[in-house]
């Protein structure tokens, strides 16, 4: 069992040993519904993209035109969506006082008509992209800009940094770089690149695409290994802060670097994936065990409380 000796966490073990015993079901809505997440984060003064407004019924669609008057760009997201499905990005808004003449430019430089966008919104509201097909809400969020650091190692979309935390201690982290194959999206299973991050320094280590090791970004051919993420300590503390307000013990935090505002929390995830282990060439299991030993986690509450500083210190020893 090669995987076992490496401490690789399998899907069954992830669910049975970590998600089910450590995460409380009643806290899920705050993570699964991104509008709720956004509100909580704002309340706790955690940097995250601004929520312009949200729609919860088809009737509100007719006011949409009025509401975007002042906006030059925005992102449309299903509140209960998963894996980045159902997201539409308006990079430019060509506003016209007549509804029909308003149009949008997406990240792929395609023009989207007003009608098409409204159709998309109504599909989202009908629950097309929600986790279990239930009625959904639409959030209209601030569009973040790309930090120049990523210019040469991404394709179209905005890269994000995934940090997995266990009882607030960062366990493992990776950078996700969109590619042409992933269609500008950050999902690893669609062909985005995942890069392991050294928790101590923020230095990028190994890279994978489609579960296979690579050395350079497939679209830009830029070497990734050895680059160091800017503001790494800020990113770590931001992720720990998220964990502290969320009440979810085993979770993932997705963070985006904005050139002006710095690290911003994009979303939280109660069921973070396992490919992060491939990107780091490390298993999650030994690290999670260490945290369990240190904190003495029983019944979903740790015996020992660590301060934010201590948590980061602990994680840097991995």
């Amino acid at each position, binding site marked *: *069992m*090669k*995987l*076992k000796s*490496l401490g*690789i966490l*399998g*899907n*069954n*073990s992830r669910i*049975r*040993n970590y998600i089910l015993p450590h995460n409380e079901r009643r806290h899920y809505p705050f993570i699964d519904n991104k509008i709720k997440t956004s509100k909580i984060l704002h309340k706790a003064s955690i940097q995250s993209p601004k929520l312009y407004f949200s729609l919860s019924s*088809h009737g509100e669609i007719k006011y949409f035109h009025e509401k975007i008057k002042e906006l030059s760009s925005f992102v449309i997201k299903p509140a209960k969506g998963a894996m980045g*499905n*159902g997201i539409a990005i308006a990079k430019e808004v060509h506003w016209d006082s007549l509804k029909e003449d308003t149009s949008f430019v997406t990240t792929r430089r395609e023009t989207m008509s007003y*009608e*098409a966008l*409204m*159709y998309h919104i*109504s*599909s989202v509201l*009908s*629950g*097309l*992209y929600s986790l279990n097909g239930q009625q959904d809400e639409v959030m209209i969020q601030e569009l973040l800009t790309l930090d120049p650091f990523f210019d040469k190692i991404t394709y179209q979309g905005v890269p994000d940094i995934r940090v997995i935390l266990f009882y607030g201690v960062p366990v493992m982290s990776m950078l996700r770089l969109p590619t042409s194959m992933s*269609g500008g999206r950050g999902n690893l*299973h*669609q062909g985005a690149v995942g890069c392991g991050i050294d928790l101590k320094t923020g230095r990028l280590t*190994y*890279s*994978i695409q489609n*579960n*296979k*090791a*690579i*050395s*350079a*970004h*497939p679209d830009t*051919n830029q*070497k990734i*290994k050895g680059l160091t993420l800017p503001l790494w300590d800020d990113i770590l503390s931001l992720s720990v802060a998220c964990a502290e307000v969320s009440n979810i013990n085993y979770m993932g935090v997705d963070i985006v670097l904005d050139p002006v505002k710095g690290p911003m929390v994009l979303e939280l995830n109660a069921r973070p994936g396992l*490919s992060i*282990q*491939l990107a780091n*060439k490390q298993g999650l299991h030994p690290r999670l065990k260490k945290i369990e030993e240190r904190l003495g986690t029983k019944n979903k509450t740790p015996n020992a409380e660590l301060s934010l500083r201590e948590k980061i210190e602990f994680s840097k020893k991995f």
Partner: protein
Amino acid sequence: MKKFKNILILLLILLPICTLVFKSQFLNISLVPKANTDSWVLELSYDEVKDIPNDPLKLDKNFKLPVPKTSHSQKVTYLKISPESKENNLGSENSSNAESKDKVLTAHVKTFGQKQIQPPTDKKLNKLELRKFLSLPELNEETLSQLNTISTSIVFETDTDIEKLKKIFFYISDELILQPNNDELDDVLTLKSGSYLGQARLLTALAKINKIPARIAFGIQILEPTPKDTNRYIRVLYSEAFIEGRWVPINPHQKDFGVLKDDFIVLDKDAGEHAQVYNDRNLFSIYIKPLSFRAFNSKSFLKKMKEKPVFWSYISLHRFPISIQSIFFGLLLIPFGTVILSFMRVVVGVETFGIFTPILLTLFFLETSLAYGLSFFILVVLLGLSQRALLDKFYLLAVPRLSVLLALVILMYTGYAILMNNFGLLANSAQDSLSYFPIVIITVFIERFSIYFIEEGGLNTLKRSLGTFAVSIMCYLLLSVTSLKSLLFNNPELLLLAIGLNLALGSYKGYRLLEFLRFSDIESDEEAPGV
């Protein structure tokens, strides 16, 4: 809690198994009702060594094993003769030769039973055949005159061939008693009794005297197998007469004229001189055993159940009316399909559309048939996909769009039925497969599939589809095993086993098999070149 769960799992797995053992060993209830067999494994062998050379009566140098043939009453699905080299060795016939062992013929025969007499044809026998089937065997004067006397006493010159035959048939079936080992014609005539062979010889001879071509045929009448002995049959030598262009079987002892009994395997339609060997248990041996069955005999099972302790017969599902029985017959096995589904997802790691879509697909296939269901399903899904892509352009709200899709699926369904009907195919397989149930499954699948296709791209969709189909086909194969269904139907407590197995699978923490593939690259230290 963990301990409790493990005990529960153990209990749920052991309890049904124990009741099965208890029922079968102590209450003597068979686990499945007796099957109505229709397919048989047949083994014929000829022991040449026992063919005593100095007994001219028994010596039969030209004997070959009879080869059962496919006909309107039976179908031969498998045939093997061993050892094969036997034929080549005939030139240097040597009984001490090690190779001249028993020759064995193995065949699988399915019996249909003859429901009606074959219709007349225009076929005529050629001269050679006529001579063969009309020539009487060598008989002494006395026997021949006896035969003529009988013939003239029962048959009128003016009778048609069929009337003559019938009279001969009734004469033999009424006047003669079955007497084993009484094979020779003169003995039959003097004693007024005969074996199957003796009676067949008499009937054939009488037919030939009346210028009706006739021959002796050989087959076996299969008897109901008992649990201890499945090899139960009677060797039957009977006659066949050629009337109105077809050979008509006549078996006076079993009162069969024109049709033979249901569980009858015809081995040789023209036994001729080999008849004597066929009749000899020592020289020519036959072994049969059931191969497959068409259905279970629920009625006799219930009868037996009622003799058992009250509790067991009280909970027997055989008490339901037949229509309700048939529901449970399929229903009870479904949880075991979900065991397969759980196993494939949790242990193997196959990805599927939705959680229960594979099971719904399985039900669809069960309601139609695998080949038909699968091809129809793929066709409709592809058509539906293109229609949905078109609908996407209209910017419709979700529920009306799904409704349009549903109507289109029904329309395709109708078109398909019309097509089948016009080709005259509706009567057979399609009739059972047209039902309400699958339509919604198809519609929902199209919707889910097309969203997934747009969101996740072709490759991921294909992977997931293959996973879904693979799991549903596996479940289908399991759920279509009739004997399993019957086992569940007779012992519904086995459902606890399915729960136990699922609890065990739900507690599995190990790696999924496909994860070994997924993480296989983790150790490779140097990266492959980019791009």
